[in-house]
């Protein structure tokens, strides 16, 4: 019986299983509606186990009942973007898929990690349709955005990524809010090591990182970054590490905003979100969050 379930075995789902296996985080069961796809990928990975030293099993299934016992379920089902499209264009199509999964997971005792785009809207949808507690439904938004910011800062500063923390909050779109004051190199604010012009370029690059990959690869959206972010969130939850990661969840009054999902730094443990940390924001930044929240609310109402 696996303790991590992955629903949807496309590029993000399969690579999330792969990263989880590589780090020996726990046993994985992959589910997909396409007959044999999950089983085939699981078998392929297990045949690499003797070489890669996997300590846990990976299996595939076409029965959604097999995911019910997992402590964490990653939802990576749905379609992905094509060049020239925005994340929000996927909403109607993916909402139907999310609805089906959410309904089958009513009363689920574990934590759900949503990777499906547009992620903030899918978190809202999944939480509404499943009825799970908001602390149990988290989305990859800020984790991925902050990972991308860490990479860009590392490259520009010539300092290893491991030294760099970055915080990106808000909506997973070009409205995301990289927080310079909460981004540091071994504790030292990045603004003391980098001039403003450079920093602005890095922030721009981060905002457009997802679009850039879609444009570059033409035939697929990004999946290594999102899968790594998913595996990181899974590890924090399954191992109860109390790691602080910015994930998307349905807010209940943060900065005066409620009923909308966006990313904020959270302490993650076995019960999902155990604590939310609120960075100090300027009035402009709070206003920016409110604009994002209003937009999300109006798109959400359309479906």
């Amino acid at each position: 019986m696996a303790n991590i379930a992955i629903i949807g075995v496309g590029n993000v789902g399969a690579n999330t299983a792969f990263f989880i296996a590589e780090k020996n985080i726990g046993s994985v069961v992959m589910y997909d509606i396409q007959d044999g796809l999950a089983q085939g990928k699981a078998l392929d990975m297990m045949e690499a186990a003797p070489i890669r030293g996997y300590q846990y099993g990976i299996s595939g299934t076409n029965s959604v009942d097999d995911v019910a016992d997992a402590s964490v379920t990653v939802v990576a089902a749905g379609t992905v973007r094509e060049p020239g499209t925005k994340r929000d264009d996927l909403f109607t199509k993916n909402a139907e898929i999310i609805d089906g999964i959410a309904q089958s997971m009513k009363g689920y005792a574990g934590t759900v990690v949503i990777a499906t785009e547009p992620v903030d809207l899918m978190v809202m949808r999944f939480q509404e349709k499943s009825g799970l507690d908001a602390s149990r439904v988290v989305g990859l938004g800020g984790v991925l955005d902050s990972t991308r910011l860490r990479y860009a800062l590392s490259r520009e500063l010539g300092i290893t990524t491991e030294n760099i923390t970055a915080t990106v909050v808000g909506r997973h779109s070009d409205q995301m809010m990289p927080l310079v004051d909460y981004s540091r190199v071994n504790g030292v604010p990045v603004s003391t090591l980098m001039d403003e012009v450079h920093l602005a370029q890095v922030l721009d690059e981060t905002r457009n990182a997802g679009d850039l990959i879609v444009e570059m690869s033409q035939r697929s959206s990004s999946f290594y970054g999102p899968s790594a972010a998913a595996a990181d969130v899974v590890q924090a939850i399954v191992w109860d590490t109390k790691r602080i990661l910015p994930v998307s969840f349905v807010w209940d009054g943060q900065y005066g905003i409620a009923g909308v999902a966006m990313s904020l730094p959270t302490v993650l443990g076995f019960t999902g979100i155990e604590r939310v940390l609120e960075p100090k924001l300027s009035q402009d930044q709070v206003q920016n969050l409110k604009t994002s929240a209003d937009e999300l609310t109006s798109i959400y109402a359309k479906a």
Partner: protein
Amino acid sequence: MSKVSVIGAGNVGATAVYYIAEKNIADIVMVDVVPGMPQGKAADFMHAAPSRNYNIKIVGSNDYAEIADSDVVVMTAGMARKPGMDRMDLLKTNVNIAKQAAQAIATYAPNALVIAVSNPLDVISMVTLKESGFALKRVVGMAGILDSTRFRYFIAEKLKVLPQDVMAMVLGGHGDTMVPLPRYTSVAGFPLTELLDSATIEQLVDRTRKGGAEIVSYLKKGSAYYAPAASVAKMVEAMIKDEKRFVAASAYLRGEYGHRDIFLGVPVLLGRNGVEKIYELDLTEQEQTALDGSADAVQEGVKTLESIYTPG
């Protein structure tokens, strides 16, 4: 495969070898004066190779010639601090050990980077530099990274978060006058000052200053080695893999932070060329005063050194 030599196969040296081996970072030579001891430990390590998947070689020797062509040499030889003993008490014994080692490094491993570990650290680093005749950036002392890792752990324990999420900067000499900088310490990017009140921070700072002594008081007959060895391994890895790692380490200053001709803990960039850069952070008057005080304490140690020191 790169080569790392560890001089002194005591607790710090042997545990550093363990961490380096576990990550397959480089072939390792352990050198110690005690006959058979480094050979025995090296053989013991190699017996674990099949179950731990080591694909590096570990060799023990009593002969410095074995360190030939090392990429990095770690100097851990010296007496460990005993309960009630000040770091300065160790000076005379350890200076002589360091002199011999530095001369051997210059002879057999003339292209190596050297990490000084023995205490008093900032003084031993100076001896190593003088005796090896190496370029300034090739000699560095392991201190700030250990002091920082302790401070990080204490903060994580207090806030009940993962230690990995805490980053901290501790400058100054590796002694009671070290300068932890709460302003340059963060938890997942949050400034520490937003998460803890100043009294609690001061308490953790104080515990960090006495971090080494806290372990000694528990162990009675020995001092810390797991955290020091982990810090050494981190520095070795940064050099071998050319990581460009931003850490606090004891580096030779030429005017940075207003000090010169002294080894002092400052933020540096570690890579294949050793100390590739020294970063000068903005300090408040209070922080600068604390750093000056720390430098004075190191300088005093260096003066004592000069009184007992005959080069060559």
